[in-house]
């Protein structure tokens, strides 16, 4: 009886948060999904009809396919660099640094989150441009070196996005790495494992959940990124994200913008679905 009651209390306490999630996440998504099937927005005197033409226009236009590939490629690049920079950083932080230093470094990692993304991106324009900070430093060391301004290029977009998203990777990896018990590693050592095999057989598998969460948290928003490519990319600035943005802001074609967003969402989900069996096997090893 008491148990029954406790269960109802638990339901009662969690209902508000689920309700909140349902309202804030699913309602706007469902509304957008509905819009994506309308011929035009139901404003003023417009008489929209249900149609698949926006989904069809994605199939018909080659440059949409090219831009989708570009956005997915950007997602892979940014996630890859976040992983190879973020994971070692998290590893050292979780396993090698102790006490007050660890708190201080964690704070430094979270610090960029406290400033506005747009400001961070504009700060990068000052660093990366010809005659910017990096360029001046290089010329101070090697006079007569060729210009190294890389602003308005694809690498500039990757650098800006890696900087924006790397804290996610460090934090999620850190959490799973510091949860690994020292006794596991000691057991491996006692049994004669080299450092490399301890890493491959114990640390990496046990930290994989953190890595996966980090990858998801980074890959999904980067594929849809539009602001960073627009400011840092110059001639290379166009992505599927900027195309979607323009449908909403320049021509108010919400239906087409929504349809393109859902196609992108479907592609991202398909990529994760394809990776799932791979990950499942990997995690089984543990």
């Amino acid at each position, binding site marked *: 009886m008491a148990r029954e009651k406790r269960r109802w209390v638990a339901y009662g306490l969690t209902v508000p948060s689920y309700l909140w999630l349902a309202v804030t996440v699913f309602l706007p998504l469902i509304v957008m999904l509905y819009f994506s099937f309308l011929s035009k927005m*139901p404003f*003023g005197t417009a008489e929209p009809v249900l149609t698949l033409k926006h989904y069809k226009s994605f199939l018909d236009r080659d440059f949409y396919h*090219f831009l989708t590939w*570009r956005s997915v490629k950007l997602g892979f690049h940014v996630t890859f660099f976040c992983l190879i920079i973020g994971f070692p950083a998290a590893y050292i932080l979780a396993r090698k640094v102790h006490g007050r230093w660890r708190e201080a470094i964690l704070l430094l990692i979270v610090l960029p989150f406290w400033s506005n993304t747009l400001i961070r991106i504009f700060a990068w324009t000052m660093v990366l441009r010809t*005659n910017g900070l990096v360029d001046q430093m290089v010329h101070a060391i090697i006079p007569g070196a060729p210009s190294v301004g890389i602003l308005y290029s694809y690498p500039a977009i990757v650098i800006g996005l890696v900087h924006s998203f790397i804290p996610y990777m460090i934090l999620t990896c850190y959490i799973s790495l510091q949860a690994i018990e020292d006794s596991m590693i000691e057991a491996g050592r006692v049994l004669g494992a080299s450092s490399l095999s301890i890493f491959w057989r114990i640390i990496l598998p046990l930290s994989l959940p953190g890595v996966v969460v980090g990858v998801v948290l980074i890959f999904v928003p980067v594929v849809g990124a539009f602001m960073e490519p627009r400011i840092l990319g110059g001639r290379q600035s166009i992505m599927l994200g900027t195309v979607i943005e323009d449908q909403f802001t*320049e*021509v*108010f074609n919400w239906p087409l913008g929504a349809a393109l967003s859902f196609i992108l969402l479907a592609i991202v989900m398909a990529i994760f679905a394809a990776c799932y069996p791979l990950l499942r096997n990997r995690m089984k090893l543990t």
Partner: protein
Amino acid sequence: MTRWIAYGRRIVGMMAGLAMLGATSVAVADEVRVLNWKGWGTDEAWAVAEFEKQTGTKVVHDYITSFPETFTKLRTNPGYYDIVVLNAAFVEKAAREGLIQAVDPAMVANSADLYPDMRDTPQLNFDGKVWGIAWVWGGTSVTYDTEVFKTPPTSLDVLWDPAHADRVCWRDNAEDSVRFAALALGQNPDQPEDLDAIREKLRALKPQVKAFWKSGDEWLKLVAAKECDLSIVWTNNTEAAAVQDNLPVSFIVAKQGAVAFRDGLAMPTNPPNAKGAYAFMNYLISKEFYAGWVKIGGAPVSANSKAVEELPDSSLTRQVLTQPDAIKRLNFKGPLSDEERQTYLDLWQETKAYFAE
């Protein structure tokens, strides 16, 4: 299915309503609500303060970032705004949709001083009524770095000149891109007859473009960082950059022409404060308001013949844009249908995808 569409409409209405809740503070007894681009005159702090001092009426702003957004905001917030700043080319469309109501010029005393051709343009006067008060006009043209060009360029071809490869800052806007390519090809920028030729002309910009900009502020940062020899930009922004930021820029009206726009002050249907709206319109077209705007630098050209006297002789606007032979080469923007706008955007996005290849 119609029921579903009705639901959709209701949802849009609800979303708009929610947005309004955020925008509306406690209703002030005497205020004028203006819908305009940010930083486009009506929201100058000194002007708003002066108007409130003179009349006791507060001015409240809501902003747009594109033409279609103006229409969306007018449609979703009926009876909310008192004044909307509209490109004259879109006034008729707004009137036909019932989004704006006719105005009474007798309520705007300063309208007697407006240039007759500005005041009486068919874009603002039709069906025997007046639908907007002519306010300002300005241009979009080629801006150049005066340190790079000892003599100003004269032709749009300079944008395609390999000597300036990777040094052109282009406005990331489908409509202007099409209009300028049309001008360069000798086509009518309002009704281009050969979009394929325009597509090829824009593609040829690939080696030329350094960066795209969307807001005036983004353009200013590019120029301040010396990223561009040439830009496509609003002429009054060039003037502001030269006057306020001392940047070495000037602009031309090329021999093939430039794009120009006229802005009018219109009254949304059933405004909450028509009297206040007329008073603010009268202030906005006054010589006094224009003098203040000119003083800070970067004002467009007033439609008021007396106010234009406030433009100093040294201003680029006076030296270049308002020269009689330059005015002849201006192409004042005509209306653009939603379908044309979408066609232009698709063409422009395809072009930019080619740039990124």
